[in-house]
């Protein structure tokens, strides 16, 4: 059944038992929403130099967006920024593959549990759910490191 390719066991596990959930102290906080469906996430990053000390988050959303945040926490905490960026890029590539990319061993090595999201990439409406926390992380990191505030600026009514 096609659905199983999206709702992998790994994803449902992360959804039911999210890792690192909750807001803890951080260097920067961002709030991202997916206007399509109203999924929301508040995410904080804490850096120790270029090392990611913590990524904490709160939010509401579907299994995909929640599981994705949990996987992100697993993958990025403790990593060096350069390494984390590479992981983020590989994940982005996978999610934009429209189901046409079959994760190979190298990719699995980088993404670990996150390869389970390969099936989600077939569902355009859900890709945004999977990317929500990753975009939030990218944005929070830019803010924390004061690099580029551009993407955080949104006109507000």
């Amino acid at each position, binding site marked *: 059944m*096609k659905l199983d390719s999206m709702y992998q066991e790994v994803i449902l596990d992360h959804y039911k038992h999210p890792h690192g959930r909750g807001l803890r102290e951080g260097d920067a906080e961002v709030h991202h929403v997916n206007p399509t469906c109203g999924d929301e996430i508040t995410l904080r990053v804490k850096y120790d130099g270029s090392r990611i000390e913590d990524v904490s988050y709160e939010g509401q959303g579907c299994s995909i967006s929640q599981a994705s945040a949990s996987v992100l926490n697993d993958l990025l905490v403790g990593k060096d920024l350069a390494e984390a960026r590479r992981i983020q890029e590989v994940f982005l590539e996978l999610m934009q593959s429209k189901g046409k990319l079959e994760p190979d061993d190298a990719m699995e090595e980088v993404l670990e549990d996150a390869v389970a999201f390969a099936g989600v990439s077939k569902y355009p409406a859900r890709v945004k759910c999977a990317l929500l926390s990753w975009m939030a992380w990218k944005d929070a990191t830019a803010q924390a490191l004061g690099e580029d505030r551009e993407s955080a600026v949104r006109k507000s*009514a």
Partner: protein
Amino acid sequence: MTQLPGLLDTEAIRKDFPILDRVLHDGKKLVYLDNAATSQTPRQVLDVITEYYEQHNANVHRGVHVLAEEATELYEGARDKVAEFINAPSRDEVIFTKNASESLNLVANMLGWADEPYRVDHETEIVITEMEHHSNIVPWQLLSQRTGAKLKWFGLTDDGRLDLSNINEVITEKTKIVSFVLVSNILGTLNPVEAIVRRAQEVGALVLIDASQAAPHMPLDVQALQADFVAFTGHKMCGPTGIGVLWGRQELLEDLPPFLGGGEMIETVSMNSSTYAPAPHKFEAGTPPVSQAIALGAAVDYLTAIGMDKIAQHEHAITEYAVKRLREVPDLRIIGPVTAEDRGAAISFVLGDIHPHDVGQVLDEQGIAVRVGHHCARPVCLRYGIPATTRASFYLYSTPAEVDALVDGLEHVRNFFG
């Protein structure tokens, strides 16, 4: 098959809608329950569109050649049809826009630029409700920010109805405009027009009714409503996308200033100044959605031939059945009125703590199309403390069997995430 009193002959009707035969995924027949988002389009309307382009296509109003005359007659004929459909006192009160959102923005902008006594400014108030579609919230937020007018709103009761208990404090002498939805697209609630209109008239405020979810589903009589403006949209009533309607009282349309400027809406133009054509043309700048208006006329013909009262009856029966069946689903909570009284055929619900996105996805796998999310009415979700809902919405071609399919599908969802 389940037989309910008041049902239409859906077997015959469904033959008019080619898309309903579509098969999805591995042989699942489409169960289309997303009618509050957009309705499907009957062959009769599609034929009119094709015929227009194959036989009569021309720009309207400005030509003496045959095609231009035919196109103009068809376009203005569509205005006659819509006027009759809503029992407008005059055809010149029917303005074609691109969608209901433009219609609502049009009123907000007219009032922002109007002279007294209509002008909305920092000393005046605007009233909406907490169950409005974003298209009836954001235009008023923008107007309020840009003029300094105060934006106020009616809250909601726990059972999904307007809380009018403080109506005299909400609508006051300062109120210039009260804008509210006739049937909520998320809750399904049918609102009590009379009480609101009476109070608005008392204080001399104008009333705008968002009938986007009413026009497709029940007889609409703008004179009976006693409103000043009524807005709705073509794509939810068997018409195409790209067409909306604003009805407005003639005196108002004469007095109020234009919104978009351009061809068609003028009387005479010089570089220094211009004068405007009388309504409705004053509000139709540029080449109008000609084929879309004509197709909306055909949709109105289609609906009228079946009968709006019969359609309302059919939907009421389906809604009653759906409410009953949905209430049997464990852990399902309806957001909005839990009976079929004074409500339309859109039913929102949450299913335990399974996120609507996940509900919708699993239903889709079974060919069942529902909408999930905040349905462009996020304040309602905030009000009821939920992130989103799953919404099933019915129309003249919906059947009890489709309700059954939905209920079975929800059972499957519960098992999947159980």
